C-alpha cells in the first residue's frame, strides 16, 4: 500500500534558526496536506498543495510540492518557541478515494 515517509523524526533547534522537514511518498499524490500537532493536542490543518512544483507561503512557513508530486517539504524561517510541535505531511491519491495517508511526523523542539 501507499507509504509516506518523513525525515527527520526529531529536530532540536535554537530559537531563530531555520527548520526543514521532508516528506516522500511511495506513489504519486493528487494532493499533499500539512498539519501541526502541539504536544497533547490534535492535528491542525496548515495547508494543501495540489499542483506539481507548487510553492506556498504562510508568514515564516514555506511549503513545496515536488515536480513529480511524490515529495514535499516544509521550511520554517527563524523558528520561535511557538513553532514547537509535530509537523505531519499527509498525502491523498485519486485511487485511494477519501483517505489521507499521514507521514510519521517531525517533532520540532525549539530552545529559547
Amino acid at each position, binding site marked *: 500500500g501507499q507509504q509516506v515517509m518523513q525525515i527527520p523524526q526529531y529536530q532540536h533547534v535554537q530559537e531563530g534558526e531555520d527548520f526543514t522537514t521532508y516528506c516522500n511518498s511511495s506513489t504519486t499524490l493528487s*494532493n499533499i496536506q500539512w498539519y501541526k500537532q502541539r504536544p497533547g493536542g490534535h492535528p491542525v490543518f496548515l495547508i494543501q498543495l495540489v499542483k506539481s512544483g507548487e510553492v506556498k507561503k504562510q508568514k515564516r512557513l514555506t511549503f513545496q510540492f515536488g515536480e513529480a508530486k511524490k515529495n514535499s517539504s516544509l521550511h520554517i524561517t527563524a523558528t520561535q518557541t511557538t513553532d514547537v510541535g509535530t509537523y505531519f505531511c499527509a498525502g491523498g491519491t485519486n485511487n485511494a478515494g477519501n483517505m489521507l*495517508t499521514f507521514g510519521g511526523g517531525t517533532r520540532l523542539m525549539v530552545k529559547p
Partner: protein
Amino acid sequence: EPEVTQTPSHQVTQMGQEVILRCVPISNHLYFYWYRQILGQKVEFLVSFYNNEISEKSEIFDDQFSVERPDGSNFTLKIRSTKLEDSAMYFCASSERAGGLYGYTFGSGTRLTVV
C-alpha cells in the same frame, strides 16, 4: 470557528468490553473519518464515511469496529470487544470535500485506555 466535538475525552475500559466513541462533525461537512494515534506514533487511518455508508477502510478496521451516523449529527465509532492494543488516541475528523480537499478538521480526540 466551527469545531469537531468528541466525547468522552478519556475512556478507560476493561479488555473485552465494548466502547462507543462519539463525535459531532462540522454541520456542513459531508465526509467523516476516524483516525487513531498510538502514543508518540503516526496518525493512522481507520475509516471514511460518506452518504451514510463506509467509503473506505483500512486493515486496522476489522470486524471488531463499526461506525454509525445514527441521527444526522452524531458519528460514532464502536469497538465491540476491546484489546490491549486498541489503546490509543482516537481522532474524529470531517471535511467539506472528498479526500480531505481543503483539509480535515480534527476533533480533540478520545484517549482510550484498555486495561
